[in-house]
């Protein structure tokens, strides 16, 4: 469906529901201040597993390896073939496009948002990137059930989201933000009637109480962040779907200990489900979540170019950081391996300059993430992966401000998705001028 068709339908909706368009000259609030999470290492099972010392060619205590970091720019083992064949990244946008006044004689309103999700998988062949898979989705986000429930304007009795589904169902997904983003816990099951629950990907989410949403009316940023979180939820789903497809493509490209054809994912593997993770490599360039103790983190920040940290295990927490407190998430399931690599000299920059954290499934290396079985070959594989990541620093992603640790193919994923997205300005005008 073309944008002008969407616009014309949205304008019909505007007439029907009296959506007041958002002022189009309002600056976009894109800055999201994220708190730093300090995760207790015991919660996520953080433990150093690497114990092979290249210098002394024997197993040593993990603490010894933390002293100086591990140099990776030596000759390496040429029998290990590491390739990065696929690159996966996703983006999202949530744009306020209008407001719906709930009552005829008051100014309480709820905002309408247009959410955009884009996920792409790029394939690298002969040093050229080509699009392998792509998913684009538009979301119409409004607290529809709340409006229907408390709105006194007669037109609000007709469900707006149903209307969206009828008119634009094949293009836009209606999302009711009256529902809580946190899933229904077992102990809450009796508290909600079936009509007060919404299901997404098999998970049920309960309806927020009207009182709370009334309070949000006086603080519209709450609706904004609610819409944004629902967009993230949908993005996670789309990303997960793409990730599963990517892993299926890579299924046969891994021979543990010898050959690795990875899907490189922007961000942690931590939040992702899937059964073939050994062909996935998570590349994390932000350091919002810290799970190493201060002493080790100091060592990480002091790494110099061409060095990496020893490998630690990280049990993948099950859950969604959008739903719950990350620090309280329980760690379950398979182990992940993670380590830091310094790909650029820090110079006079921030200590995180040129620093990357990599995540790998523990089963991807012969020892399976058990420190007792760690041997030289495991260290060589980790070195080879780190070395290949280091090679990816060229070409640079400049002029992106994060170019120092943004891998160029991931940058291309972002640019591709950015180019495909409906610009904020256009999105704001979809329901017409004020």
């Amino acid at each position, binding site marked *: 469906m073309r944008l002008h068709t969407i616009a014309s339908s949205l304008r019909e909706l505007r007439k029907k529901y009296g959506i007041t368009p958002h002022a189009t000259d309002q600056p976009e609030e894109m800055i999201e201040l994220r708190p730093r999470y300090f995760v207790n290492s015991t919660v996520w099972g953080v433990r150093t597993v690497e114990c092979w010392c290249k210098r002394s060619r024997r197993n040593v205590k993990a603490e010894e390896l933390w002293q100086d970091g591990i140099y990776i720019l030596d000759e390496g083992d040429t029998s290990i073939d590491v390739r*990065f064949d696929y690159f996966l990244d996703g983006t999202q946008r949530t744009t306020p496009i209008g407001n719906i006044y709930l009552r005829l004689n008051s100014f309480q309103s709820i905002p309408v948002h247009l959410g955009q999700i884009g996920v792409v998988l790029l394939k*690298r062949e002969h*040093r*050229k*990137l080509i699009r392998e898979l792509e998913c684009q989705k538009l979301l119409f986000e409004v607290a529809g059930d709340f409006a229907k429930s408390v709105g006194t304007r007669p037109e609000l009795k007709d469900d707006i989201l149903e209307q969206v589904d009828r008119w634009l169902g094949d293009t836009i997904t209606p999302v009711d933000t009256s529902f809580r983003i946190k899933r229904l816990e077992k102990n809450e099951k009796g508290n909600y009637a079936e009509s007060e629950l919404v299901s997404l990907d098999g998970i049920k989410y309960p309806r927020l109480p009207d009182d709370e949403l009334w309070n949000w009316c006086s603080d519209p940023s709450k609706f904004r962040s609610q819409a944004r979180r629902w967009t993230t939820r949908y993005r996670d789903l789309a990303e997960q779907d793409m990730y599963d497809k990517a892993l299926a493509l890579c299924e046969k490209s891994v021979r543990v200990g010898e050959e690795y054809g990875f899907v490189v994912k922007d961000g942690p593997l931590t939040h992702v489900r899937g059964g073939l993770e050994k062909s996935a490599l998570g590349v994390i360039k932000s350091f919002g979540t810290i799970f190493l103790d201060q002493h080790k983190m100091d060592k990480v920040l002091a790494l110099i170019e061409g060095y990496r940290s020893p490998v630690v295990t990280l049990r993948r927490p099950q859950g969604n950081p959008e739903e719950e407190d990350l620090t309280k998430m329980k760690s379950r399931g398979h182990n992940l391996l993670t380590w830091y690599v310094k790909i650029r000299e820090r110079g006079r920059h921030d200590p995180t300059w040129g620093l990357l954290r990599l995540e790998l499934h523990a089963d991807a290396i012969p020892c399976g993430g058990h420190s007792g079985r760690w041997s030289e070959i495991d260290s060589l594989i980790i070195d080879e992966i780190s070395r*290949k990541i280091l*090679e*990816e620093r*060229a*070409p*640079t992603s*400049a*002029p992106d401000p994060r170019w120092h640790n943004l891998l*160029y*193919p991931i940058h*291309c994923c972002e*640019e591709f998705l950015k180019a495909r997205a409906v610009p904020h300005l256009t999105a704001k005008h979809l329901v017409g001028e004020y």
Partner: protein
Amino acid sequence: MAHYFGRICGIERMPCTVNEFNFWIARGSHDKVEVGYIVTAEGDENDEKVFGLVTGIKFYTDAGSVLVDFLSHDFGDPRSHPPTDRQEILIATVSVIGSSKHGARPMTSGKVRLSTPKEIGQAYGMDRIDKKVFCGVVANGPDPDNWAPAFVDEKFLLGPEGAHLNISGASGLATKTSAAVFLLSSVLSAARKHRRKYAVVAFNVKGGDLLRLQNGGEDNKYTQSELLELLKNCSNDETRKMVELANECGIDLTFGKDHLKMFAPAKANDIKQPNSLVKEGIKPFYWSLQDVLQVDAPVRLIDLFASEDLDDKAWGVLARIEELLEENGPWADGSIVTFQQLIHRLATKQSKGFWDPHHQATVSKVTRHIRISCEGILRGLFAYDEEMGKDIKIENIGANELWIVDIEAINDRAKRLVFQNITSRLADLMEKESIRPVEDRRLHGIVVFVDELNKFAPSRGGGNTKMKSQIIELAARGRSLGIILFGAEQFASKIDREILGNASSHLLGRTEIVELTDKAYGWLPKDLRFIVGNLEKGRLLLRHATYGQPIFIKFPQPLHTFSTSSIDNLLNADLKARQQTLPTDEKELVFAYLKDALKGTRKVDPRKIYNDIKDIRKLGISAEHFGNWYRCWVTKMKFYGTGSNERKAINFVIAHFNKPH
């Protein structure tokens, strides 16, 4: 199915306008587009098409600065290959030529592909031309199947709407003369087709190119028909396609002897011989004193002298001489009919009182000048001691005829006199023709081709002003009279602006960049200048009055310019191509025939066969050479080499021995 290689893109800094649009070139199609190609943009939502000429191509990567790219290559190592190639893009700029629907608005979005031959015709309005003159081939893309014929409008090339053609370009590289020869044959063919009567007068001012027009190759080893047949069937796709297109458009690339006449001034020491590089088929011409004394003579006695040689007093004496010699004049007694007699009379009678008020010294000076001119500089063109001249009967030129006047071997002053004489008479001829009803005219127009035009009509100073003004007059008024000037020169900037401005068609071959910065090339888009500065031989840029944009064309090489080696190359390539496709048994068949033919003729001396078969000798090969071939055939049962002559020779041998003796 059309191959789309790009898409229109307009951004704030580089918007699409009514006369220009940009498109990016798809990955993998970078080699499909070049500057000078004609492309078609198709709208996504309607069937509107916009045609344009690619005038520039730019290359970008997503590197924010050169430094970024430098750093990305391992701090400036040109051999380093990062694991991922940068995102790179080629953006082509296109000057709009026209569109399928008339509308003054820019193309908004659409896919871009190479224009088809039909669309090229549509873009340049060639499909709307009533009387087309084939002027070359638009080599749009590497595939000759996509090449299109280029046409100019006869009304704008030969009048009456517009007229004249100017060809400029670097010597030796721009193939100006070859282009002119091709266009002359095209004009004559078109005239025949359109039932119009046109003739051509060409002045040969350098080399012998125009004098060998009827030759088949430089060495004239083949007839033009044979050579043309070879080109039509040769394995070189480009050559074949050009000849094919010319043939389809009804162009006769051969010059028959019946329609070709060549003249040259007589030799100074032997007026029966032409003063020319080529002797065969060239008729000498010369003028006598009688020819310059007639009142309406195109070249008068006073024209024989350069204006800077004589002062006013001397002009007075010359005028007096003309008075004395004119009909019923004191000297019109029949005793002075040659320049020799005139000089003699001037030398002996000067004290007899004819000269008042002229001074003796002036008379002596004029006498000396006449002697220098007629006995020296202009001797040959002017017969010194002949009573009657032998003129070119230019008034007799017929429709479809090409007359060549070779003025290469004579000096500049003589060249100008010949040019002045002939063009004046042509103007008179056409003036008389123009007052007759169109259908009764013997000629509708005459094309005058002048090479090295800058010599006759320079842009500033120099040159004979009378001559220059005559050419300017020709350029300005010739159109209405039916005299069309085809001029060629190295530098258009060195030609008088009026002549250049009056030409409705311009052909531009490879030209120095410095020259291209002159105002004379103001019509040339800036981006195309570089291309024109590096044009390959045989490729020209054509601007025509009815075209929205200039167009790059190629043209079939004139048959007389093929060198022997290039013909041999064509033959060999052709033979190789045929041998590749020739079934083995067919080759074997030739030797089976030979074996059969030679039955009972064992140990025949090849020299005897050579002497017996005239056709083999005609091939121009030696007896020894033939002997080598023959021995190879009968002993090894295979060809000695790959030449076509050998194939002809074996056929002659088979035919000879198959004859009943």
